[in-house]
């Protein structure tokens, strides 16, 4: 990939931390407003952190296709007396690590002190991303013939990845089976049943190479985290999770919008590869320093590309790595310990990030990775995306 300018370690890193997390239930029909979901998740993140809403002065969120509520509305509902920082990103799964990265910049620079980052949506009973027809300049080159939705775009990349890796669609089962195993240990997961390879192969194709279990489960729900300075975090309820590394990146020809996948030259490398050098340089650590990884997985092929793109495994080796059990609790690198978006549900990666926080705080319960001190988190599946490296204090 052709590279542009790179930088030394950004000065804002290592000074901020994530403290608490908050979730609502994840459901197929919440029967409540998105605003109500957002408020509930944010309140729980504050309770978890042990601070009052009056101390919050920043709020950040992301949404797609008008599926959520603005930070201002949530600040209003929480009774925040003085908001100094608000960011509403028009992004999907590429956003959570970037939103936290941006909050960290705001806090380190003094623009804000305590920033809530949330994602809230009725993604199942309301706007469903997987079948929403959107108006965009790129749509005219795919919609007319029936290429209309993310599962199909990502599947187009997955096929090429399988071709170049010398694999077949059936090999994607490894990711599904491994993440189902974790989901069985996660009360929040929408799907908690384990799956055999035969059961996987009997599932119908949605869009070949993806069968039903290769696709995330759209849900109603919300998830929030609180970002603050490391100094303040040390005086809160929970062990600070330090934001050590962060990057957002894309490469040349990222398209004209987040669904414009056509012109990206190499469907076997996604945003993870584009941001890897910046990410590792930003924290002075490397792939071998990670104790676990929470990798965005709207579809089963995506964490494979992230593992390879970040250099956690060699190119073409991710499926074998998963098949060998190396992503399980006692493996070389536990991955997606909550069962991923495939099993827990599609909160567009906010829950992927929250799981990393729980793990580093030792709150993973039956799925806790022993002695987890470092974790890499990714957000995004296609051209652009973001990532964080988190550590214990």
């Amino acid at each position, binding site marked *: 990939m052709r590279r542009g300018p790179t930088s030394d370690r950004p000065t804002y890193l290592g000074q901020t931390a994530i403290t608490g997390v908050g979730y609502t239930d994840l459901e197929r029909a919440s029967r409540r407003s998105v605003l109500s979901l957002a408020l509930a998740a944010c309140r729980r993140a504050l309770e978890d952190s042990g601070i009052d809403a009056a101390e919050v002065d920043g709020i950040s969120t992301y949404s797609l296709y008008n599926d959520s509520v603005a930070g201002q509305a949530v600040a209003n509902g929480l009774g925040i007396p003085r908001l100094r920082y608000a960011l509403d990103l028009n992004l999907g799964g590429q956003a959570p690590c970037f939103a936290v990265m941006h909050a960290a910049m705001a806090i380190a620079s003094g623009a804000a002190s305590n920033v809530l980052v949330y994602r809230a949506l009725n993604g199942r009973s309301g706007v469903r991303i997987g079948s929403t027809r959107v108006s965009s300049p790129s749509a005219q080159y795919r919609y007319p013939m029936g290429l209309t939705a993310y599962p199909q775009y990502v599947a187009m990349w997955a096929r090429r990845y399988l071709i170049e890796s010398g694999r077949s669609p059936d090999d994607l089962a490894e990711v599904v089976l491994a993440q189902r195993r974790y989901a069985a240990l996660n009360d929040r997961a929408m799907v908690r049943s384990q799956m055999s390879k035969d059961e996987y192969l009997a599932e119908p194709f949605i*869009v070949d190479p993806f069968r039903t279990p290769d696709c995330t489960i759209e849900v109603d729900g919300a998830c929030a985290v609180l970002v603050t300075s490391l100094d303040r975090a040390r005086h809160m309820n929970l062990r600070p999770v330090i934001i050590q590394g962060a990057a957002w990146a894309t490469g040349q020809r990222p398209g004209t919008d987040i669904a414009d996948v*056509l012109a990206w030259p190499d469907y076997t490398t996604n945003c993870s590869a584009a941001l890897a050098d910046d990410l590792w340089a930003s924290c002075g650590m490397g792939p071998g320093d990670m104790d676990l990884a929470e990798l965005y997985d709207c579809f089963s092929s995506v964490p494979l590309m992230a593992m390879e793109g970040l250099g956690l495994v060699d190119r073409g080796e991710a499926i074998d790595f998963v098949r060998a059990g190396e992503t399980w609790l006692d493996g070389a690198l536990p991955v997606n310990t909550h069962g991923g978006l495939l099993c827990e549900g599609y909160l567009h990666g906010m829950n992927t990030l929250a799981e990393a926080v729980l793990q580093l705080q030792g709150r993973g319960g039956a799925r806790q990775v022993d002695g987890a001190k470092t974790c890499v988190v990714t957000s995004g599946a296609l051209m652009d995306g973001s990532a964080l490296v988190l550590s214990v204090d």
Partner: protein
Amino acid sequence: MPCRQHGLIHPEIDDDSREWWDRLRDERLSVARCSSCGHRFFPPAPTCPSCGREACDLEDVSGRGSVYSWVTVHRALDPVFGDDVPYTVLAVDLDEGPRIFGRLCGNASPEAGQRVLAVIYAVKGQPLVGFGPDPRS
């Protein structure tokens, strides 16, 4: 090689794409070419994504290319295509360089690198690009 497509979402044609669709109506498949750096690209755009300059014109292409990737849709995610499933959409690397999406015309299973030739067909009067086997290969 027939391309049997029932459903259609009409393209939202804009100022940057109108000429490309007009040429397709004349059964001409084209890509954009930058007269400054020579880069050929698709879809057409106001500037060249390689050098950023504005000197971009359409140029007709052979329609020949190789299969880069494909998907076969078994569940229509837009109900408009409910009568079409299963259907296959190819990503084809044209010999001139750019990549383009198009329906697979015919029943053969695609293969990576397979040689294909563009077929321009119409659905409800709307011309679209599909791909069938290249008889030369």
